[in-house]
């Protein structure tokens, strides 16, 4: 899925709600992100379109809050708590996810398997 800033995007999305794990002063989500508009999109192993500068989930720690919530490696994060993640820098995305005053993060993510599932279901009908 290619994304050009400013252009409308259609995507099949899934909502994921992650409850942060408190570890001392740190709040842990349990996954890592890559990408961002300030990153080299061609290095992104998960994107179909190598110009896509979106934020992608690169790793998910086992048993962590993210995995529990259903997040998967390769998911593209569209929104975080309503904030757009399709046109942000890597650092901006990181900060949105790690706000210390928020215990819950709601993500809107898309992934290829979701699209395929939808396509199949539509064909069946």
């Amino acid at each position, binding site marked *: 899925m290619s994304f*050009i*800033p*400013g*252009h*409308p*995007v*259609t*995507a099949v*999305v899934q*909502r994921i*709600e992650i409850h942060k794990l408190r570890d001392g002063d740190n709040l842990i*989500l349990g*996954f*890592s*992100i*890559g990408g*961002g*508009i*300030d*990153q080299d999109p061609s*290095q992104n192993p998960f994107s179909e379109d190598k110009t896509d*500068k979106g934020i992608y989930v*690169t*790793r998910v720690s086992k048993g962590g809050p993210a995995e529990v919530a259903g997040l998967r490696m390769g998911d593209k994060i*569209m*929104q975080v*708590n*309503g*904030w*757009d993640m*399709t*046109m*942000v*820098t*890597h*650092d*901006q995305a*990181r*900060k*949105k*996810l*790690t706000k210390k*005053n*928020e215990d*819950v*993060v*709601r993500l*809107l993510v898309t992934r290829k398997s979701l699209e395929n599932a939808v396509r199949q279901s539509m064909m069946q009908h």
Partner: protein
Amino acid sequence: MEEYDVPSAASILASVKEQEARFERLTRALEEERRNVSLQLERGSLPSDRLVGGTTGGSNQPLAWQQMVMQEQSPSNQTSLAMMQEPQEVVEETVTIEEDPGTPTSHVSVVTSDDGTTRRTETKDNVTNMKVTKMVKTVTTRTVRQVPLGPDGLPLPEGSSPLGSYTDSIDRRYMKNGERFITPQATSTLTRSYNNYSDSYNDAPDSQFRHYTLHDGYGDMADNYGSLSRGVNYRPYRPYMPTGGYRPENSYTLPIRKDDYGHVAQPQVPMGSSTMDLNRSQPERFQPEPYGLEDDRRSLGPDDEEPYDLEPDYSTANRRTLPGRTIREPLRNGPRMRGYEDPIETELIDERHPYIHGMYPAPLAQPERGSLASLDRMGGRRSPSIDSIRKDPRWRDPDLPEVIAMLGHPIDPVKSNAAAYLQHLCYENDKIKKDVRQLKGIPVLVGLLDHPKAEVHRKACGALRNISYGKDHDNKVAIKSCDGIPALIRLLRKTNDMEVRELITGTLWNLSSYEPLKMVIINHGLQTMTNEVIIPHSGWEHEPNEDSKPRDAEWTTVFKNTSGCLRNVSSDGAEARRRLRECEGLVDALLHALQSAVGKKDMDNKSVENCVCVMRNLSYHVHKEIPGAEKFQDPSALQGPGSAGTQRKKKDDAGCFGGKKAKEEWFNQGRKNGEHDKNYDTLDLPKRTEPTKGFELLYQPEVVRLYLSLLTESQNFNTLEAAAGALQNLSAGQWTWSNYIRATVRKEKGLPILVELLRSDSDKVVRAVAIALRNLSIDRRNKDLIGSYAMRDLVSNLPSGQQRPAKNLEEDTVVAILNTIHEIIIESSENARSLITAQAIDKLVAINRTSQSARETKAASHVLQTVWSYKELRNALTKDGWNKTHFQPIPTGTPKGSRSCKPGYDDTTLPLMEKNQGNRGCSGGDMIPMGELGPDGYSTIDQRDKESKYKSSDGSSDLQEREPLKNDTNRKHYIRSNRPTVSLVDACDVKPQPVDSWV
């Protein structure tokens, strides 16, 4: 009066006339053929009777002579002018003429001549007697005057053969207008003019006669004469008159006239033509239209460059007209040179004032000096060859009072010529404009606007257009105070002549630049201008015909002028805006025109600029001024900045994600600051039962695309500024529509376009865009995007310390940018971090400490305080070597940004904003979203109009701007896809980002 003189006078006259008679016979022989044709035509009309009567009426002794002369002359005259009868009269009257100066008798005689011969005789006897004596004495006062007046073509008569040409012209006119004139005599005005006319007519010969003598004999002396008082000079010359002067005139006069006419005396041309109108001269040389237009355009053209009004016209008009005109051009110089500037002349003019008002009689009295003076000058300036021809300066240009007097002449061509000449004189000459005003010429010109003949009202309009142009508002006021504006509008309604319409609208445009006249123009002309010009030329149709394609706008001069006029009047405050908004069809037509411009990719012209400016002005304060605006007020507006973000959401439904609304709701639940979310459910786009029309179109989200197209495509700085200003106005305020507008700008990918324009080299464009971005950032999501993508460009526009960047933006612009930055970083530590990343702190601190502008210092200080208020950023700041003191206001420190923001809001922010607005009457605070930012746009417009009136456009900046835009094709791509990347990549360089980060 002095009876003893009579015999001598009579004898002199007799001898003169004899000579004349001979002379004319000769000429007659040559030109008989011509005359036959013309004579027959003309003779059919009345004048012959009258003339005969007049001749007979003349003095008893002279009668014989005169009659003889008449017969003979008539043929001769015909050669030259085709008028035979009049020449006779002239001759006799010449004698009489002298009397005129002395007394009204001549008048009486004239009148009688029309009615019957009898009366005249009586008077004339006296007259003849009088003549001699008076010649010497009286001359000073009247003789001269009458000459010019009588003919109406004043000056010419003198120069030309007094009898023949002069008379002829008169006759003809009479003939043409004959019916009118003769009958009218009963009426006051007509009669009057007629009488005067005839008087002068009769007199003319004499006066001319005298003049000639004087000039002939003293050709060299002429200069002296001009400067000296007439009376004195006159006497000495007199002796020559009888013999030498007179004859020569006849001989040369005719030939000379033609020559002069053609070559040199352009000014005269109009005049001459009026007098002469006769057969040939008029058609060829005087074609009124070209003359008038040329003058106009020429005159206007130069003017235009300075003031905004006519600029465009100038260039085009010039091109069109000039090529064909080459021949005539030289002529024009003539007139200008005559200057009314000479102190002497001015004085004279002033003196004459009173007379002029009197109408005809007045003019008669005055001409002498002026004419002489002008003659002198002309003589001096002419080329040698010409000089030789006219050693005797019989030709002279009419002076101003004469020209103005001729505006009231009963003969239409005289009027139109006089008006055309006035137009010419006024061209780029403020002094003459002022003189025309003081001589009360303007009401006369305005009166001519209602003249049925196109030629006349066209020329009058041309003159008014030139007069209305310039800094001297008194001229504009003078036009207004004699009801010139309704007269112009009337004529606009009446005429279909495109040229006249151009002149009318050009005049209105000029008038509209003066504040106090704006409402007058609106009151009288708004609907007419809309119906007659704007709607038809815009291509908009009230009820579009489904079969036909929508029409495109036509960028005619009329449309340009009218839209320029509306542009000016639209800046006259709330009432003016209301009237324009409610003017039926106006907004619809303007929008249609702009859409057509975008469709044709033709938007760099002045008409588009005018239309956008009107739209921007009308968009100002829509949320307050639109009827029923209360209904749309956003209840959450009271909540302050934070609420804006949520409101926009409802509008966002069509945004990036389908069905976002629901999702957002869901997401918002997770947001701690999601308190406001409930509101947005209740806000919905008002349902439209019928297509939007009228002023509602101003703020429909659909206009966003139009403005964005203009911003993308136009290369005209004024258009860019106005389009950005329109978005600024529309996105200001807290009402439903501004929420939609803000969201629509984002949806239509407008933010990158605006950000791109931050790089413009035009100060005003940068300013308008910056303020627009500030208003747009009331929308929370816009704020995030702008913070991410615009920060670098905003910062790069800031000066670093006392060193201004290459652009060297004005204080207003710098303050606007600072305020925008402040707005963006409020409640967004992310954006504040972007600001730091963009290395703005250096600049801000430098501005805060060293700027010489108090406003810049304050604004920068505000930003710094806000930055420091984010505790999470302090670490980074400290690492970069900053400390608390850098973020404190220099004079009095309240270091804590967020806290101090509140007080700052009251006493600092608001003032800042106002200053930022340039004291243009902005209403609200800047930094607070609730505040009205609109005023900026509006006032900007207004001010720009004022400024541009007399400022020439900045050519250099234009050039610069165009270059970047040359890559038009690449531009869009660049903006939409590459642009953000580029700036972000830059950021990347500064601070390498992790490829992968755990969260």
